[in-house]
């Protein structure tokens, strides 16, 4: 993917560029709002990473101007401001996701992945399938290898989210925000317990372990090659 980073902090920008390049992306960097807006409107990108506090033109204003001009590129807003109202402002301005500094690079990569995929899945799906695990989004029926699995409503939403992002890393905060719909900092890793419970139900007794923990990043549901 071709990604535009609008960030005034040279070190953060270099770090982002390095990591993204290692992940196989093509990176262009702008150091202020005006330059970023110019690049975003004159060239084509697959995704934008925009810092909120940048000189010349505020990050949110850049996003607003882009959206007003009909640009629908996925935008990930970065900020040192982490309060919910700031987050809401960021999303209202047209950002697709909001990430608070400091963040682990894996978190950024996971979220970037998620917002880029969001645009491509246009047709509403009624069922999802990963290897021999299948869920029906209408009837909420879950089967693995033809065997029916009973899930609690929250476990179903958790599995649904993991399957929609199959093959990609999903972080704990992404799960809290999407599956539980609350923005908060858990003091302990309560999510881990939910994951291990879900793993008990879908992986126990099967040779192929679909739900894996990615150390220091989060979880992934995938069918190993």
């Amino acid at each position, binding site marked *: 993917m071709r990604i535009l980073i609008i960030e005034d*902090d040279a*070190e*953060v920008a270099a*770090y982002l560029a*390095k*990591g993204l390049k290692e992940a196989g992306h093509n990176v262009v960097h702008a150091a202020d709002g005006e330059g970023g807006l110019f690049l975003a409107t004159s060239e084509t990108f697959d995704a934008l990473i925009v810092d909120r*506090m940048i000189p010349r033109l505020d990050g949110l204003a850049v996003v607003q101007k882009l959206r007003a001009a009909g640009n629908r590129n996925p935008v990930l807003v970065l900020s*040192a*401001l*982490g*309060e*919910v*109202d700031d987050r*809401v402002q960021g999303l209202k301005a047209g950002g697709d996701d909001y990430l608070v*500094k*400091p*963040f*682990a*690079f894996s978190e950024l990569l996971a979220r970037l992945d998620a917002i880029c995929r969001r645009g491509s899945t246009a047709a509403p799906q009624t069922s999802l399938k990963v290897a021999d695990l299948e869920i029906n989004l209408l009837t909420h029926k879950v089967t693995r290898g033809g065997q029916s699995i009973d899930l609690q409503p*929250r476990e179903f939403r958790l599995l649904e989210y993991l399957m929609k992002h199959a093959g990609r890393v999903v972080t704990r905060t992404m799960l809290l925000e999407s599956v*539980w719909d*609350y*923005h*908060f*900092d*858990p*003091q*302990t890793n*309560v999510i881990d*317990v*939910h994951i291990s*419970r879900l793993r008990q139900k879908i992986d126990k007794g099967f040779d192929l372990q679909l739900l894996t923990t990615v150390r*220091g990043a989060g979880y992934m549901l995938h069918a190993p090659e």
Partner: protein
Amino acid sequence: MRLNKLFLSSTVRFAAIYMALFATSVLILFGFIYWATAGYLERQTKAVIETDAAGLADRFRLNGGEALNQLIAQRVSQTRGQEKVYLLADRAGKVLAGNLPTPPAVDPVSGQWLTVEVDDYDAEEDGEEEKHFALAYTIWLSDTLYLLVGRDVHELEEKQEIILQALGWAFALTIVLGLVGGFVISAGMLRRIETINETSRRIMTGDLSRRIPLGGSGDEFDQLAQNLNDMLDQIQTLMDGIRQVSDNIAHDLRGSLTRLRSHLDLWQSQSAGNDIHKPIVDKIVREADNLLATFNALLRIARIEAGNRRAGFAAVELKTVLLDVVELYEPLIAGKGQNLEVDLPEDLTILGDRDLLFQAFANLLDNAAKYTPDNGKIRVALDRGSDGVRVLIADSGKGIPAPARDKVFQRFFRLEESPDTPGNGLGLSLVAAVVKLHDGEIRLADNHPGLRVEMTFPAGN
């Protein structure tokens, strides 16, 4: 209620003081008016009597006793009944002339004023017999002979009475007007003080944008309000400055912390598995994460305490939030074999921030799960108390000793026995900040055994 009473009582006190001062000055003024009017009439009457008596005495001195007798007889014949009283008598009390048949007891000196009872001279005219008195003056013509001249003062007394009555009514009216005026003035004054109080209370609850309205007259109250407003402006400027500085610090420090964390991240990923430093790097990353978490929590508490979040308040269904918290922690609690009792009979709504409330309840339930032994008991309840909506989170852990209960809400305070348990000593500070933001109250009590956390929030509607 209490405040209202106080307000009323000071109104009454001010009105009473005002009234007392007012009444005293009016009383002095009316006393002078009475002296100037009724007193003048009496003085005039006395002057007439004195002149009349002096005239008669002169006649005696110049023309002798017979001439005086004639003159008295002439005067008596011209008067109606005893409207004017004349008497010429000797020391023994023998009447020589005049229309007063029974002479009163008199002192043997000239110039004595006395009151004698006389007949009603106009009893036939107005048809009623009234008691009349005459004001009389004596002059001794010789050692044995004295002259008494008097005037019926019934009419004078009537006039004086009318004046007194009029003044009495005027005084009563003045008292009533004074009382009303006192009330109006002191209530008006106190209302302005109350406006200042009300504004101060709003400001104390975090709404620093409030200002005291000015009356527009530029009086002392306006000056006081203006001074307070200027002071508030200055405080707000200072606070905005501090917030600006702390926001800048947040931005800058978090920026460098991000870079630190990023470098560590890269190091960690590059030294995958085979580096002998890996355990140390992992430890440093964990420490950096802890540092960031503490820093974030501190900033978060500061922002919550600043009260800005109130602008985004909406109706929050507490039962839903509590059920979500319980649902999130249920597997963790079940994993420790703890018994979770959830008692949420009705959905109660408060005005608030659902994410912050979720965070506060989650912190408390997290603590409960952390400090309650395996197979212990945890209870979450919601009910309507007398003073609002009550949320209860109780456990059967080791609890918090009574002397430490106030301190646990302070930043970085940790119980001595728990230095090894993870946490930064900010969890309960955050809870307290969230509860305060919602105008709520939080109380810690002994659950016999364990900790009982009780929060009360004002009901939403």
